[in-house]
């Protein structure tokens, strides 16, 4: 493995602990492909030296990564840490998070998501070109055809993000990415009662229709209604879990 230090910038000032930074850097390295799935991590002393941290901080970070399911560790002489193949957050953790997140938090997150997605939809109606709108339509259709929760979640998030892209808005897009990052795993959690892909797909197609017609106000209205319905469904699922 090449030296990670050259690739991963250590931020100058950060309130995160050393261990948290190392967790972020290792996850980053895996995401980038510097460390492949199934690949063994170097011995602790080597890795700590490469990252420029103490063995203590590294061990703390490895513990967090183990708990997250990002690495698997086999004890003993031939043991060591290996990057696991599972890249999704374990279902159990997502369900726990949905159960334990108060409805107020979900509502607040849903409000922000509705605000940014709908604003992007409105701008997209004004600024989108034909091929860009076609790309949005394609994402909506792919959601309708999604057969797994993971693929539905990915293409659903990509649709919202693409709204920001067609809106030509880097900041809105970044905010949508953040919202989807937090909301999408919960919205697509393996619990009963959350709408099947065909439902949001229909709404997405309606938004696309408005955008194609250049109707910004209409696109905004449909997007808000859709996001609010999703927030309510999510809160409903939360209460079912919390009371069960």
């Amino acid at each position, binding site marked *: 493995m090449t030296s990670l230090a050259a690739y991963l910038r250590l931020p100058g000032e950060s309130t995160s602990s050393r261990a948290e930074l190392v967790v972020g850097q290792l996850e980053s390295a895996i995401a980038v492909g510097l460390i492949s799935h199934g690949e063994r991590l170097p011995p602790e002393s080597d890795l700590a030296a490469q990252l420029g941290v103490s063995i203590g901080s590294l061990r703390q970070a490895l513990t967090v990564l183990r708990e997250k399911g990002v690495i698997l560790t086999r004890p003993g002489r031939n043991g060591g840490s290996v990057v696991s193949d599972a890249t999704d957050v374990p279902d159990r953790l997502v369900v726990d998070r949905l159960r334990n997140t108060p409805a107020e938090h979900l509502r607040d997150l849903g409000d922000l998501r509705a605000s940014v997605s709908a604003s992007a939809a409105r701008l997209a109606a004004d600024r989108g070109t034909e091929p860009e709108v076609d790309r949005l339509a394609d994402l909506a259709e792919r959601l309708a055809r999604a057969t797994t929760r993971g693929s539905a979640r990915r293409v659903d998030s990509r649709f919202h993000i693409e709204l920001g*892209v067609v809106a030509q808005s880097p900041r809105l897009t970044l905010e949508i990415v953040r919202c989807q990052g937090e909301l999408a795993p919960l919205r697509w959690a393996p619990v009963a009662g959350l709408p099947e892909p065909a439902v949001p797909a229909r709404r997405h197609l309606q938004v696309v229709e408005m955008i194609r017609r250049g109707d910004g106000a209409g696109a905004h209205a449909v997007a808000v209604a859709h996001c609010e319905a999703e927030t309510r469904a999510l809160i409903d699922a939360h209460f079912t879990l919390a009371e069960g």
Partner: protein
Amino acid sequence: MAEPDRQANLDAVARAVERRISGTFAALREVSAAAAELFGGSAAPAKAEFARLQPLLVGLLEQPAGDPDIAGIGFGTVPRGPVPPWMEWWRADGAGAPAHFVAHNLNPHNDNFYDYQHGDWFSSAASGRRSSVFGPYVDTGGTNDYTVTLSVPVVVSGEVAGVAGADLTAGSFERLLLRALGSRDFEVVLTNSRTRVIASNTPHWLTGGLARRAAPLAELTLADHWGAGETPWRLLATS
């Protein structure tokens, strides 16, 4: 304002824009040559091999006098056989800031996967085997800037081994436009071939908007010196 003055001003802006694009393609030819060399050995280059491009990439980013003011530059592989997917991409966050590696998410199973092979800048150069000028667009998962990306295919033994690309921010074209214009007596808009506004000197034409309904008093299509296909940009004087 007399007609000839408008045209002269548009010409000045056009020349400045063309100089900047030419300068960037010259930089990309250097990157392309260096990348091609990495494929010269008997074995396909591993990810670590592409780190040898770093001194060249960093040097091109840290040009003096901010000319041609490249915001990001690098190389993406066409994965084939033993050649892995890889983006050796470096960026400088503004004048004087040190260049740094940009860690793109290359894990296809991850929600934030950066599918560079399907990016327009990459695919038009790779499959079209030609220079490309793409944008402006929101580079999600990459720089998150509003970006114009220039790219050239890297051909090794008749095959496209990868694409070298360079990012210019849409915002940096405003500086160039204002400097070349020297006056604010009329409104000038720089658009791409799809009428999307790259830069202007007026709040009437916002970057990212479409200048479809503009009724220009003078206009000029930039020459496509770089063989970049249907990407000729236009300059409009709208008042």
